[in-house]
């Protein structure tokens, strides 16, 4: 750590790789009920905290008490955040949406001809096809799709809107035929 404070990135890398399993073990031992992803979240918070306050480490003193104190407080912060979220959020199962009037329920509604849909998508211009594939089939967010394609979010929205309109026209034509 002392070498890391002097700007030695190799020493810093070695240190971080050495402490990460220890931090992970500490988190698991103190919060055994956390899932793997929650444990990783806390581990990452600890690593970020260590990085942010590395100036508070005194090279004349041992590292582990310093690190353990950060882990302990970040765990407490995570616990408080978890409790706050639990108080304000209700987790629900992925329920089907139903309505009182049977006619209004659309759960039985399915598209009859997947092949025609696939063909219609293939017939779209490349930009529109890519937008539909990323946003509707792979269900990426606009931000993620934008990062992948290099298109702006606005352009993606327009391409998707046009693609849906084209698909609707194409599929209505197929139904009539």
């Amino acid at each position, binding site marked *: 750590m002392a070498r890391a404070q002097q700007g*030695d990135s190799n020493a810093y*890398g070695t240190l971080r*790789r050495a402490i990460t399993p220890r931090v992970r073990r500490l988190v698991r031992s103190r919060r055994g009920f956390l899932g793997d992803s929650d444990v990783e979240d806390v581990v990452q918070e600890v690593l970020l905290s260590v990085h942010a306050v590395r*100036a*508070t480490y*005194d*090279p004349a003193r041992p590292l582990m008490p310093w690190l353990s104190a950060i882990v302990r407080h970040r765990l407490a912060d995570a616990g408080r955040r978890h409790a706050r979220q639990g108080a304000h959020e209700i987790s629900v199962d992925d329920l089907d949406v139903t309505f009182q009037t049977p006619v209004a329920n659309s759960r039985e509604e399915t598209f009859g001809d997947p092949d025609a849909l696939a063909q219609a998508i293939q017939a779209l211009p490349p930009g529109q096809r890519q937008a539909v594939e990323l946003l509707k089939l792979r269900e990426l967010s606009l931000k993620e799709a934008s990062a992948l394609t290099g298109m702006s979010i606005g352009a993606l929205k327009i391409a998707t809107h046009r693609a849906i309109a084209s698909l609707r026209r194409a599929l209505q034509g197929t139904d009539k035929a």
Partner: protein
Amino acid sequence: MKTDELIDRLGRDVTVTRPLPTPGMRTAVWMVWALSYLILVAVMMFAVMSSARVTPTPLYLVQQGAALVTGIMAARAALASVIPGANDRVWVVPAIGVATWAAALSWAGVLDLQASGTLGVTSQSDWPCVASMTVGGLLVGAPLAWMLRRGAPLTPNLTVGLAALAALSVANIEACLTRPHAFALTVLLWHGGTVAAIVTLCAIMGHRWLRWPDMTTR
């Protein structure tokens, strides 16, 4: 983001970082500022009034000494509380200082009662001291607050509360110097009340002011 990826990203950010001096050393730096402020106030008062208005009795000196020691200990505790792995019970020593300070004032109140037959509770209001302590506390506490932001906000509410206690202890001495009080209980109620109210407010708001640095990675 995966943890390995985060580790790589942090490695790109590494720069030379000077370790913070010890809490004792940082307290000394802050005390230079706080004592300079007190000396400046005393000199200005002497210049304006040509002679000091306060007649220091031993008990008065004990009160001010206890306030000063409380300020020093609270500042040291606040600065230690932002160092991971430092003592978790940093608040104990300042708490002893506060108790000593309150005991000295209470004892002076008993002596007032014996000498004058009254505690003087209703004879004096002390709003000027409330204002003077608030402003003085801000002036004395600002550098301490800045110093605390370089540390780790492990217990922000406690840290900010201790910092407020440190600044107000010094501001109390300044208020006692500039405005002598006939009764000790006035000081205990008005100065003590001001300290308690502001320290409590600061402790409640501490987590809003002292936060972990921005955690987003580039």
